[in-house]
């Protein structure tokens, strides 16, 4: 059937070499997933039986509103990022460019597969496909990235194995792997201890993949030392899909309320999420390297998603899903801007951002939009998901959620405005990596002018995707009511 469009398009192209083909592959799958979102909006959920076997026997792909929504986010953000990081990929992958793009396609195949699958074990397979590609991509960074990549591999495999163990428990108690059927069986009878154990193992496994707080150790190193073309790609979408899988467990595997009332996983997510929000923000404040700072900020934002899921109310889930989209767009903007800055000037330290606002107006403009969205200034996207999270908190009288979300906005402002302040309010400094020779005797202003003459914006094909992403934070923010009413609320109901 029609959902099949997404997967084969990606799958067929994953061995293709080169930027153009990779771009065509992602672009096509983005188009396919947007089309399938429209289709689902009109006609309801799509089902596709792999190999023609009917669901309980065969593997089923299910595209409902929510998975179509997440697939659109993943593929369209990936498209923009691949365009934007082409120059980085050229520089970093060198003569292995073909296999680099092969891995990128493999990663996206895995992620899209995780989103559309309706089978628990199939989810595991796609999870490992995307993770393997991500390990290898991180490892390409060399030096410390190799160690970070190895650690990511060990921890990621533990996460995957825990997930598989949990699926095993569920399979032996229900005799099915299909998500829909699993839910039916568990709704009738879910008292078995083994089901509870299974739920706990799945929670631990997916928690590792989405870098929930005590299990986040792989993330900062992996994001910091990975090649710029890679961290820009995996930071916005990789952990989001882990979060999506967690939401899927709540929505379509376990019966309504099971994960809150019978097994206290909702509470665990809530508590770990609240700790994570604060921890991530505080850790981000003390980082000097912008990539590391953004990585810790990712932990904090993912924790916000976890809180939304943990509340378990429809409003909480809306907040979580909306934040998946928002954070994908915002983080892509910020990482893209950071990558562009590093590309033109080699700057990675926050302290060196002084005066960049004048030298790279478009890139830093987009960075500003992304930062404002992260903090949650109204027209930009971040505001709305936080708004829903706060509302959900009030609704279920979890006042601590309200407090923590508000405080986290403040902390986010602290660490992001630090960069904006030095980028816009401080005078230009000589570029540290190039060390221009300004002749002696020049006054302060002449020195500035001399540098301003050399002011360089990032190359156009890097600047444009960055700006598009930055603007989309605002556009999506304005359009958020449309998204919530038409896609998310019916999707959750």
């Amino acid at each position: 059937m029609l959902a099949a469009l997404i997967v084969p398009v990606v799958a067929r192209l994953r061995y293709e070499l080169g930027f153009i083909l990779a771009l065509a592959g992602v672009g096509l799958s983005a188009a396919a997933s947007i089309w399938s979102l429209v289709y689902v909006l009109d006609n309801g959920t799509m089902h596709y039986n792999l190999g023609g076997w009917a669901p309980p026997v065969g593997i089923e792909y299910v595209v409902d509103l929510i998975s179509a929504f997440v697939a659109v986010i993943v593929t369209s953000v990936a498209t923009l990022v691949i365009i934007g990081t082409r120059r980085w990929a050229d520089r970093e992958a060198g003569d292995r460019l073909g296999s680099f793009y092969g891995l990128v396609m493999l990663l996206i195949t895995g992620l899209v597969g995780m989103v559309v699958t309706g089978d628990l074990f199939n989810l595991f397979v796609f999870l490992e496909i995307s993770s393997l590609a991500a390990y290898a991509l991180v490892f390409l960074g060399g030096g410390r990235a190799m160690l970070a990549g190895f650690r990511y591999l060990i921890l990621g495999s533990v996460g995957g194995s825990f997930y598989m163990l949990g699926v095993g428990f569920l399979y032996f108690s229900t005799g099915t792997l299909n998500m829909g059927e699993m839910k039916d069986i568990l709704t009738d009878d879910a008292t078995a201890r083994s089901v509870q154990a299974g739920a706990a193992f799945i929670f631990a496994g997916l928690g590792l993949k989405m870098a929930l707080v005590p299990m986040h150790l792989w993330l900062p190193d992996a994001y910091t030392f990975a090649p710029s073309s890679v961290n820009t790609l995996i930071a916005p979408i990789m952990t989001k899909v882990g979060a999506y899988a967690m939401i899927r467990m709540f929505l379509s595997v376990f019966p309504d309320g099971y994960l809150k009332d019978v097994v206290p996983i909702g509470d665990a997510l809530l508590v770990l999420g609240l700790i994570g929000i604060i921890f991530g923000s505080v850790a981000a404040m003390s980082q000097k390297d912008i990539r590391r700072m953004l990585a810790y900020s990712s932990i904090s934002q993912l924790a916000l998603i976890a809180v939304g899921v943990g509340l378990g109310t429809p409003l909480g889930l809306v907040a979580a899903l909306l934040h998946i989209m928002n954070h994908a767009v915002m983080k892509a903007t910020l990482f893209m801007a950071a990558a562009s800055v590093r590309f033109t000037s080699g700057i990675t330290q926050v302290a060196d951002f002084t005066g960049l606002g004048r030298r790279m107006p478009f890139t830093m403009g987009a960075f500003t939009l992304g930062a404002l969205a992260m903090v949650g200034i109204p027209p930009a996207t971040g505001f709305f998901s936080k708004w829903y999270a706060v509302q959900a908190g009030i609704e279920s009288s979890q006042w601590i959620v309200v407090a923590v979300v508000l405080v986290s906005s403040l902390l986010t402002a602290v660490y992001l405005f630090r960069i904006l302040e030095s980028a816009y309010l401080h005078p230009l400094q000589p570029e540290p990596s190039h060390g221009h020779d300004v002749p002696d005797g020049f006054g302060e202003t002449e020195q500035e002018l001399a540098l301003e003459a050399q002011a360089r914006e990032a190359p156009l094909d890097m600047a444009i995707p960055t700006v598009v992403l930055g603007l989309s934070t605002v556009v999506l923010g304005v359009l958020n009511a449309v998204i919530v009413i038409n896609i998310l609320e019916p999707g959750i109901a």
Partner: protein
Amino acid sequence: MIDEIAARFPYWASGVLIAVGLYGMIGKRSLVKKLIGMNIFQSAIILFFIAGSMRDGATLPILLIEDGHILTPVDPELYVNPLPHVLMLTAIVVSVAITGVALAFLIRIYREYQDLDEESLLKKVR
């Protein structure tokens, strides 16, 4: 207690192996030993799945057909559950792939630093 363990021996064994694997990954400093720990961990899960599909006195789930007549009885009680075996084939492929990638990583790391001890490596790369 002993009877209990003996009756469900494969499950206890896989539980113990999981613990051993986790210890290897967390407690050992050598990256190779971490990898071995991970492999033990994954094998334990495979054992768990296979043990779950077993049944006393059951046989292969194959129907013998000769001249259109089914020779073996069609009674699900007599067969082991084949699905976990199939799943575990996939899982084995996945774990082989992961091990392969990890070993490639280790070779690269060793060529660069002539060292596979985590703590001294961390000092070297800084």
